């Protein structure tokens, strides 16, 4: 039990080698499609957001409320230092490239749910100097290790979606009701949506998917052709945020 020095060195060496290998060989080419080229055996979790259903319930923020509650996300009450895992954004802000003046009013004037896209080629992971944020091999979730993060905010600069939040101050006084089962964060680290990795481990769906009164959020393994999310993506037109940047976002918006 416990990591001894030799084990540590082996791990350190292996990590360096894999990173080297990846860097030299190039990870996947930008914008490759996990459905076509990804091995079917590997899980790739993704989410589809039914904008049609979601906008039927204007002003609903159930997903934000439950997520921020169970994850002890503070309410700083100051837009500059705000911390958000999942929230609603104007269509134009979320999809600057898809927006135009003559767009249907119901799309243009409604807000859309945004969260970390759990990109398949995540720039935040690429830039992090400590591997505090990484893409999980087993299911593609982009994870955070708050124990290791040095708070350099390079990932904040690298994420094209504003998904990453920095703790400018101690968040604890700003958490109304602490959930004892989940840690809070400390000042000086970055945090973001983790696709409810802790719930998935218990066989539960992400809290937002569970709670959504409109059933507008569909979550599943996109590498499984029989999954609900694959079926729905097959039958409905979907868009993604800033796909041109080659990050291969895994949140699909059904229009």
């Amino acid at each position, binding site marked *: 039990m416990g990591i001894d020095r030799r084990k540590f060195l082996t791990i*350190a060496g292996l*990590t*360096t080698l894999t*990173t*080297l290998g*990846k*860097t030299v060989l190039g990870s996947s080419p930008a914008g490759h499609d996990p459905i076509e080229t990804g091995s079917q055996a590997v899980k790739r979790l993704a989410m589809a957001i039914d904008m049609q259903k979601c906008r039927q319930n204007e002003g609903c923020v159930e997903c934000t409320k439950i997520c921020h509650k169970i994850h002890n996300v503070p309410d700083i009450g100051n*837009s*500059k*230092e*705000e*911390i958000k895992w999942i929230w609603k*954004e104007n269509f*134009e*802000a*979320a999809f*600057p490239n898809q927006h135009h003046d003559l767009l249907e009013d119901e799309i243009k004037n409604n807000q859309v749910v945004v969260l970390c896209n759990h990109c398949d080629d995540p*720039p935040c992971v*690429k*830039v*992090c*100097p*400590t*591997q*505090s944020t990484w893409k999980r091999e087993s299911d593609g979730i982009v994870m955070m290790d708050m124990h*290791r*993060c*040095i*708070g*350099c*905010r*390079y990932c*904040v*600069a*690298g*994420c*094209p*979606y*504003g998904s990453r*939040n*920095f*703790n*400018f*101050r*101690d968040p604890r006084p700003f958490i109304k009701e602490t959930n004892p089962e989940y840690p809070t964060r400390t*000042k*000086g*680290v*970055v945090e973001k949506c983790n696709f409810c990795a802790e719930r998935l481990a218990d066989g539960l769906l992400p809290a937002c998917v569970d709670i959504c009164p409109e059933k507008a959020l569909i979550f599943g393994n996109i590498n499984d052709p029989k999954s609900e999310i694959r079926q729905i993506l097959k039958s409905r037109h979907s868009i993604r945020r800033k796909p041109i*940047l*080659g*990050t291969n976002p895994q949140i699909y918006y059904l229009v």
Partner: protein
Amino acid sequence: MLEKAITGDKRYWGWIAFVLMLIGTGAIAYLRQLDQGLTVTGLSRDVSWGFYIAQFTFLVGVAASAVMVVLPYYLHNFKAFSKLTILGEFLAVPSVIMCMLFIVVDMGQPFRVQNVMLYPSLNSPMFWDMMSLSGYLFLNVVIGYMVLSSEKKGIAPPKWIKPFIIISIPWAISIHTVTAFLYSGLAARPFWMTAVLAPRFLASAFAAGPALLILIIFLMRKLTRFDAGKEAIQKLAVIATYAMCINVFLVLMEVFTTFYSGMPEHMHHFEFLYVGLHGNNTLVPWMWLSSALAVVALVLLLTPKFRKKEVILGFACIAVFVSIWIDKGLGMIVAGFTPSQMGEVVDYWPTLNEFMVSIMVWGIGLLIMSLLYKIIFTVRGETKPALEAKEDKKELTVPSN
């Protein structure tokens, strides 16, 4: 040799005490930041890097510019720079140290900085930046020390130092290139994502660095008996002139590409800088001041008659330095974050606390530089006591130390 830094007259100690006071005041502000977090800065979730990272960027340039005296002397045997190379190297040393400190004070968890070494991430430019900066620091300390101590003994520097000097030349280029890669590799930030960022950084560094060196030479001539000589000063002026021309040229390239192509995502950042965006024009007067200074500097530097007059040259150097400082140390970083990913313009201006912390770092740089320069001039017997400083032209009979 090092003990020369702790011998000196009243004037020297007064200066050191003053710098220590600056550091001390800044340190109080830093303790406050450690205690409360980066909330004491003007940074926000949208503008998440600001004054600290901008100073870091600017100072990498100053550090790299040492190569502009090292290269002509060692590769082209340009003798007039013989007395200047150490000045360049000992300017690089405090600059690199300040760079590192600016990175550390910008961190949310500075006590975990060792994680960068414990979990080396070869895909992160920040890892490479740390490597290249520490390598450059090492090279300049070793070279500066060896060359100066041989000079003290009146012998030629040891042969083994030559390869170090040669390596330090491309290494200097590399530190600023990797620093540019920190930004230019980000698809998320159109303002930085340009291939000319690294060349632009280098050009502005090679203008601002020599300009600063000329100003230092002028100052040292007042304070010590050191004289770099007319030829060296004029050569530095020519280097700064060419570099400044290239710098302005590259900026104009950016402006053309951005505005002729007309891609809004690229244009917005420039608009924010030069005309203001969504009613926010915090940086507009600064950027125009920077442009105006650049024009003035170019006119003065490109006219040989002006360049050869030292008073005018001094003004031109100040103009170059301030112009580039505004561009890199104020505009460059903030403009990358404005407008934000959501198209918003979020106000940013460094707070007093942020500024005080920066003063601490600059103070540490000044302190190190003062000590190092003191060593140089004492070893060379070029100091002059306070008394003689006032009666300017009086010949000294005994070299002081």
